[in-house]
């Protein structure tokens, strides 16, 4: 099985049947998927964020490790794209490099390896049984039909439970991978992780939620206009500066 080259800025895998795909031996003679090719933004090969030598070594080894087959990575890409599609102003899962993130996190958190591999195999068996081809080689409409059946935990059909668990895991990883990128921050509207001066909840927000600061409490709080004046106390422990 071909291993994947990590040295591209835009990953591109052909959404076409692989000869002798992992499960399907028949029924994948034609690629009927809407997209002929899966493209996604590549994530970096190395990171630098205050690591010890041991951590750098561990992460380098993880980056080198090849776990997923191309078919599996393609399936992951297709699922990520369904969960958070790119037809949105802030971009979708593929724009945020989700297949690369899922690949890394599954290698890093090894208890995900089997559920993801087995889940993909389950999905292919299900797709072949109901639509005659691997999940990535059935039509887009058929793929969404499959997802409609496994995307909700209130479905009680015993035959679908393994698929429901797998889809929930893929949804978790896709969302966490997306909302921990710059695009995700923008989509959420998160405004922190930057030096600032906290001076309480904005007045309009207090009003909207029907709460208020008590004057007695505010008297104990920092006067931010005096934050740079060195602290001094009197002998009774009262701050006087």
């Amino acid at each position: 099985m071909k291993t994947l080259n990590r040295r591209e800025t835009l990953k591109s895998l052909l959404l076409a049947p692989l000869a002798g795909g992992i499960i399907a031996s028949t029924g994948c003679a034609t690629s009927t998927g809407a997209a002929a090719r899966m493209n996604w933004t590549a994530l970096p090969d190395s990171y630098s964020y205050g690591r010890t030598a041991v951590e750098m070594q561990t992460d380098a080894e993880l980056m080198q490790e090849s776990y997923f087959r191309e078919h599996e990575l393609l399936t992951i890409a297709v699922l990520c794209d369904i969960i958070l599609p790119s037809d949105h102003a802030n971009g979708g899962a593929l724009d945020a490099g989700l297949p690369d993130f899922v690949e890394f996190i599954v290698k890093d958190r090894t208890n995900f390896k089997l559920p993801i591999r087995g889940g993909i195999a389950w999905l292919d068996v299900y797709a072949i049984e109901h639509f005659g081809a691997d999940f990535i080689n059935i039509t887009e409409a058929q793929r969404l039909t499959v997802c409609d059946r496994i995307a909700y935990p209130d479905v009680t059909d015993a035959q679908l439970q393994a698929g429901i668990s797998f889809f929930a895991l893929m949804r978790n990883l896709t969302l966490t991978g997306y909302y921990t990128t710059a695009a995700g921050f923008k989509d959420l509207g998160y405004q922190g992780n930057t030096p600032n001066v906290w001076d309480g909840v904005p007045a309009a927000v207090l009003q909207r939620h029907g709460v208020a600061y008590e004057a007695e409490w505010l008297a104990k709080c920092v006067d931010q206009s005096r934050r740079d004046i060195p602290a001094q106390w009197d002998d009774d422990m009262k701050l006087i500066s």
Partner: protein
Amino acid sequence: MAQQQYDIIIVGSGAGGGMATYQLANAGLKVALVEAGAYYDPAADTQRTQLRYPWESPRRGASTRLRPFGDFNACIGGWELDGEPFTNKGDTDFRWWRARMLGGRTNHWGRISLRFGPLDFQRKDIDGLGENWPIGYDDVKPYYDKVDKLIGVFGSNEGLYNDPDGFFLPAPKPRLHELFYINGARKLNVPVIPARKSILTKRINNERGVCFYCGQCSRACSIHADFSSTTALIYPALRGGQIDLYTNSMVREVTTNAEGKATGVAFINKETRQEQHLQGRIVVLAASACSSARILLNSKSPQHENGLGNSSGHVGRYLHDSTGASRAAFLPDLMNRDMYNEDGVEGMHVYTPWWLDNKNLDFPRGYHLEIGGGMGMPAYGFGFAVNQYNEFLGERVGGYGNALRDDVRKFYGARLSIACRGESVPQYDNYCELDPTVVDEWGIPVLRFNYHWTEHEIKQARHMQDFMEELLEASGGILLGTKPGADQDYGLTKPGEIIHEVGTTRMGMDARSSVTNEYGQLHDADNVFVVDAGTFVSQADKNPTWTIMALSWRTCDYIVDQIKQQNL
């Protein structure tokens, strides 16, 4: 090379060791500071994790074996260390967090800085359990005062007898979910006051910065606006001069002479794997309660057959940790929040100190409540079970597509959680000892733990669970998860899990039932001192760090005085 003779050898660079280094070096003594981990500077770009975005990590802040609290957490160490095992006897399930870095566990703690109160030093007088301290609040108060001013702590003077006032910096204003908690607590007549944390909301000197509210104390502050032993004590002490810093140096034992007095320490240089010796007049142990006990137990000699300081057999005994339990709720009032920067300081801005009288309860000791929630920075785990709260709204859980984006925003920050931290009753039968058969990679015998909670802690946890439910619901919350019952000890944390382990070298006036005197000085060897939480007779319903530093300072004053009097 001629062997250097030190006045003081300090083992461990956390809260107790950092304070001892600062005080003793500034007193003009020649100090060796010996740390098992590496040098650390949170401002160095090669080590900095503060203000990093999640996408700077390939795992987006998820935990690793080396950083169990997430891979942006400053603390290098964890529950399990390569080559340094510990063991549990029988069905004991003790957890032991060890840091391996300059500053030790002060690099990741919650900065919650609570003085013990007058009652906390005399619990036996109140409930007949455990033992009283040989000292009282009045003995420690001057040192709490000095620690407040030297280190900096925000809070408020409330006039609460057992939660004493201090020299506080002003508190940060509550966040939105905290206002909901305040309202809930008021309904139940439960007190709620500003948190007390060693974070500089106001300038205290020209060396350390003022908090810029990134909410990331646990990543260590590059402008030194929170307390860590490195940035607030060790760096300033190093600038003063007479300190030799030995990092990656794993102390095996305190060496002693024919009179039974300490002569120095033997340690393993972890880079060369060679054993080295340091000679010193006085040895100060600050390796953490259990590590200091281990060093003492491993310091066997004809004069100290059971280990140094252990003629009483009490080294390792009375090991105890804080209790803990937690619960969370969904706050429907906070759905679809307006977005603004709510990072604030790390963790809570408000808390509830212990407010009841145990005379009216079926358990003897109290606990405090820590409040969580808010619009924190997304990291690994964000977005998991994205719309699970839909079940409370009669809407469908699950799905896919762009609708999930709306769910993410709908539920972001709509959560309130409480974590309780309580006092346990120290037990003679809860202890650490040397494992007779297991050594670490340096050949040093490791610790084996024996620890079981008693009905006191289990009943306390039941009370915690009941009260957390009441408070969360009174605050407008819908309870999440299920309440743990008797079969799970009411969600009581495992011993060691709160990382407040204390008591292994407890102080006392009677050398037959304690290891040190009130100054942390070994009864059996007067030139060996313990300045970590090992000397605690009882761990109050308060976090231990402020008391560790106050007692360490008190010990240092005593050491300097005894040197002047030529008793040491």
